[in-house]
């Protein structure tokens, strides 16, 4: 189970182990990481699972799908390193991944 770190806007670190094949969002929700609301349960329909990927990790993640890209176009406070955590499945090479949680998802 890769170990993933979520950093909240107050710099609090939430380190969670997420089973392979689960989405990053599922791992966060399962471990009660605050600020990953995931209203739509991973249907890529709400953008309340938005995270910023640590710059070192951007290239290591699978690219955005068209759906995720469009959803992010409409989301609040996005940046080039924005991703929807429900759209990324955990693989073994994500050990040590660092993600930041936005101030507000709504």
């Amino acid at each position, binding site marked *: 189970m890769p170990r993933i770190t979520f950093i909240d806007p107050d710099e609090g670190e939430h380190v969670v182990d997420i089973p392979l094949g*689960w989405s990053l969002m*599922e791992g966060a*929700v*399962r*471990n*009660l990481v605050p600020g990953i*609301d995931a*209203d*739509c*349960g991973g*249907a*890529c*329909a709400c953008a309340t699972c938005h995270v910023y990927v640590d710059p070192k990790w951007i290239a290591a993640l699978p690219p955005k*799908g*068209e*759906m*995720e*890209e*469009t*959803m992010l*176009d*409409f989301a609040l406070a996005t940046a080039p390193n924005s991703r929807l955590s429900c759209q990324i499945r955990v693989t073994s090479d994500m050990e040590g991944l660092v993600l930041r949680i936005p101030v507000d998802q709504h």
Partner: protein
Amino acid sequence: MTQILIIGAGQAGLTAVQTLRGEGFDGAITMLGDESFAPYQRPPLSKAYLLGAFARERLFLKPDAFYAQAGCELLLNARAEAIDRAAHTVRLADGRVLAYDKLMLATGTRVRKLTCPGADLPGVFYLRDIADVDAIQPVFTAGAKLAVVGGGYIGLEVAAVGAKRGLDVTVFEAMDRLMARAVSPAVSAFYKTEHEKAGVKLLLNTGVEAFEGAGKIEVVRAGGVRHPADMVLVGIGVLPNDTLARDAGLACDDGIVVDRSAMTSDPDIFAAGDCTRHHGREGVAIRLECVQNAIDQAKHAALAMLGRPQTYSEVPWFWSDQYDLKLQMAGLARPDDTIILRGDPVSRKFAVFHLRDGKVAAVEAVNAGPEYLMGRKLIAANAAVPPEKLADMSIAMKDML
């Protein structure tokens, strides 16, 4: 201390708990559900979970620790039997009596059952909850003859999973096209082709007359023909769980009637999700059976219980997964809408827009995320877009507004 009581531990109930706490409510919350599970997602039940590609623990909307952390007393295997509005209490099947200041009904739906001869034979299944899938799994095996009754989205999702798992699948549909209640003819026709390509037999205009078998299902009699079957999955719609409300004298009309703040005809009782009938953003009374409505209406119910009613006007949306096809819909189509096709169904990536008075009223998108998402925006904005522009693939969806 204010006591909020929620009946029904599903998507709507859970969303209300989250909203209440998110909005700073510091009174007591009790949520009761008659299933033995904490709130979970139903959509995977006919998709990845049935396929076996999704561990059970992934179904749960929150880990168990959430309820303690949120200060929500969660009572499972607990069925509400009667509401005493004068006393502000709810009686449970086990005799317990719970008091409330504000009550929320989030009781969802139950499946509509077939009543034809043989309908209660072993091997005839329905699909609403985890227990149903657990009962289906042992016989849902390669080579088995699966008869699906009802060509709606649940029946077709099960057919798709069945075909993928090597079952021999036949779908019986009484209407002349698939998903007739939910999608336009072009989309029905597209899905017909896809299911046939996957080896699923589709019998349209074919109502089921009876099930036959000695001790278990063996034959489906439909259209005067006897079709051998090892198992049957019935997906012919759902009925709202509104008996509790009706018995308590609350206004009901095929669903618990709520206003746009999610209040019932009793100012201390609110309702949200599949069990309700409300006047949607278009002003017509509707009953929606989708995650979106459960979530958005529950948020409204929570705010209303806190004395901050808001007008519910969100655009309804819905999805269905069959094979590698993602069907996503938003808005409410009407038969007399003008239909605009964007993209070519042969490419397995297209969208159908519904225009009403020149404005985008609904969209159905197949493997077309931008069309769906931008469609939702256009519907919410009541935007007028010229038909030729919508159909023009050289114009990106994000440039439609």
